[in-house]
């Protein structure tokens, strides 16, 4: 297995996420997963695209530890390194990220094009008094999926881990950390054979009529309206 690990570091949150990714790197080395790492100044859109297109490497796995938005993953400095314009590069591989929000649109699009996506549908949060527990929560899915190979149960096992850690934090009186852990656990998604869920009635109807992949292909009316207003 081959992996591309992207971990920018340019602000306070990425100081921490950079550190969280160290464990992933270590697990990859121990498990014999070949890793190309793009860290800090190397973590740019151009370099990422270069590696994802490079025929002699072509990773099976894309790991991204940085900020995200609904339709993108940020690179060094904060601009989108992956977004809806170049996400076809992830269409045949598996993406694993702790970025905020990206499972909401980008993850759905990657899945729709044939990729698998592990990520979060809302803002990700953590506190500095429980960094080890947050690292465990962000990284546990990687262990279940790629080290233990338990694809079928990885998401439910990860959700159990988030629950256990939430109650450990309650037990130690770290209530703000506990609510962050609980929120992150609720927002975690894994799109593989599981299709993305939607709270939108119209989307549900489209999925019912057109099927999963085509039902998600039609942009939401709100997005169409936003584009039209631009």
């Amino acid at each position: 297995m081959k992996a591309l690990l992207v971990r920018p570091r340019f602000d306070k949150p990425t100081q921490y996420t950079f550190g969280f990714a160290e464990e992933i790197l270590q697990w990859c080395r121990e498990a014999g997963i070949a890793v190309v790492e793009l860290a800090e100044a190397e973590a740019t859109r151009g370099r990422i695209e270069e590696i994802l297109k490079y025929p002699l490497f072509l990773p099976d796995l894309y790991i991204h530890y940085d900020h995200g938005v609904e339709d993108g993953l940020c690179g060094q400095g904060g601009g989108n390194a992956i977004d809806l314009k170049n996400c076809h590069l992830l269409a045949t591989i598996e993406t694993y990220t702790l970025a905020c929000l990206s499972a909401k649109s980008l993850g759905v699009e990657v899945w729709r094009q044939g990729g698998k996506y592990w990520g979060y549908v809302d803002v990700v949060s953590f506190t500095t008094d429980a960094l080890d527990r947050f690292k465990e929560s962000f990284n546990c899915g990687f262990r279940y999926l790629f080290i233990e190979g338990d694809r079928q149960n990885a998401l439910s096992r990860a959700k159990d881990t988030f629950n256990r850690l939430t109650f450990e934090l309650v037990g130690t009186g770290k209530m703000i950390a506990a609510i962050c852990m609980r929120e992150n656990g609720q927002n975690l998604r894994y799109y593989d054979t599981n299709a993305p869920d939607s709270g939108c009635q119209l989307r549900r109807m489209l999925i019912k009529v057109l099927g999963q992949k085509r039902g998600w292909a039609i942009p939401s009316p709100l997005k169409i309206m936003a584009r039209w207003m631009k």
Partner: protein
Amino acid sequence: MNQIEKALIDEIKKTLGRVADSNPAWRLVLGTETLSATEIIKKLGNDKKFQRFVLTHYVGLAVEIEQKAREKIEGTSG
């Protein structure tokens, strides 16, 4: 915000006040924001969305604690 929610927010602010005194380096990383305990106290006072976020999870956790307690009782009573 009702009386009970207001009381809960006040208690959370007190706890955060203690955190601010005992561990000034403590931070909440919320997406791209990094907030100190003092900044969260302020945010709890004027950011309704953040208040709702905190209250929802506190109540949710209370429900889950109750569920766990019931499971323990049911697990030991059989």
